[in-house]
């Protein structure tokens, strides 16, 4: 009995909060955490639309589910690689502040 709009608004707010974190935080791990928030918001959106389509179609709509699954896999891969990068950079330069990693700066 919950309107679709509620889910969409919650997802939008969560996405914005995540975006704020991703832009404003200095610590690279904190940036990754914020990106996780954004991906979660995307998943809420996808599954809300999945529910809507399933109820209008009358059977389980697969596109939404597969999309959500791929988002989760991508999030896992992103965290694994992202943290490995952060640790590798940390080992070389002893910093986790994203803006201090500037070896390519002219």
């Amino acid at each position, binding site marked *: *009995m919950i309107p679709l709009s509620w889910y969409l608004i919650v997802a939008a707010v969560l*996405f914005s909060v995540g975006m704020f974190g991703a*832009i404003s935080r200095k610590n690279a791990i904190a940036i990754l955490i914020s990106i996780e928030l954004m991906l979660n918001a995307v998943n809420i959106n996808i599954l809300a639309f999945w529910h809507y389509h399933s109820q209008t179609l009358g059977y*389980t709509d697969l596109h939404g589910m597969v999309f959500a699954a791929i988002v*989760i896999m991508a999030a896992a891969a992103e965290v694994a690689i992202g943290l490995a990068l952060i640790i590798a950079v940390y080992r070389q330069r002893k910093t986790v502040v994203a803006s201090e990693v500037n070896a390519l700066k002219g």
Partner: protein
Amino acid sequence: MTPLQIVFLLVSIVTIFSAILVVSLQKIFHAALWLIVTLMGVAILFVLLEASFFAAVQILVYIGAIAIILIFAIMLTRNIMSDEEIQSNRSWGLVLLLVLVFAVIFINQLSQSAIFNSILYPLEVQGQDNIMAFGQGLLDPAGFALPFELASLLLLAALVGGVYLAMDKKGGEAK
């Protein structure tokens, strides 16, 4: 207000509140803990959407694995970025303004959509059948078999790349 709506409102308020704490707390470890609360809230939202499988995956993958390795990584990179430092950029006020503008535009655009005000009812397909249809679709060559195999390749790349990057290489230590 039905009980379901009350539950939804409570959960979403907690979720958003803890998300705000995640992006604003000074101590990065505490931010990770609040992230777990947020993830839990999102899992409950998935339950309310009748996506049981994804709710369980959310608990298992995000809370059980991603949050844990985030905490591991925080501990590994611990003693350099002390928590007393300011954790935000200098221009965070500007960012906040931009994000607020973005959110307003975003929600405004969403509300233009035709299906924005439609109500979600309980689904007809229940229980195990949902997951069974999902499994059949994932492995159906005419369906989503290719994305499924490609996802495996993505995970392979993440595994190999992550281990390669993170491992101690002999003599590679910066002194």
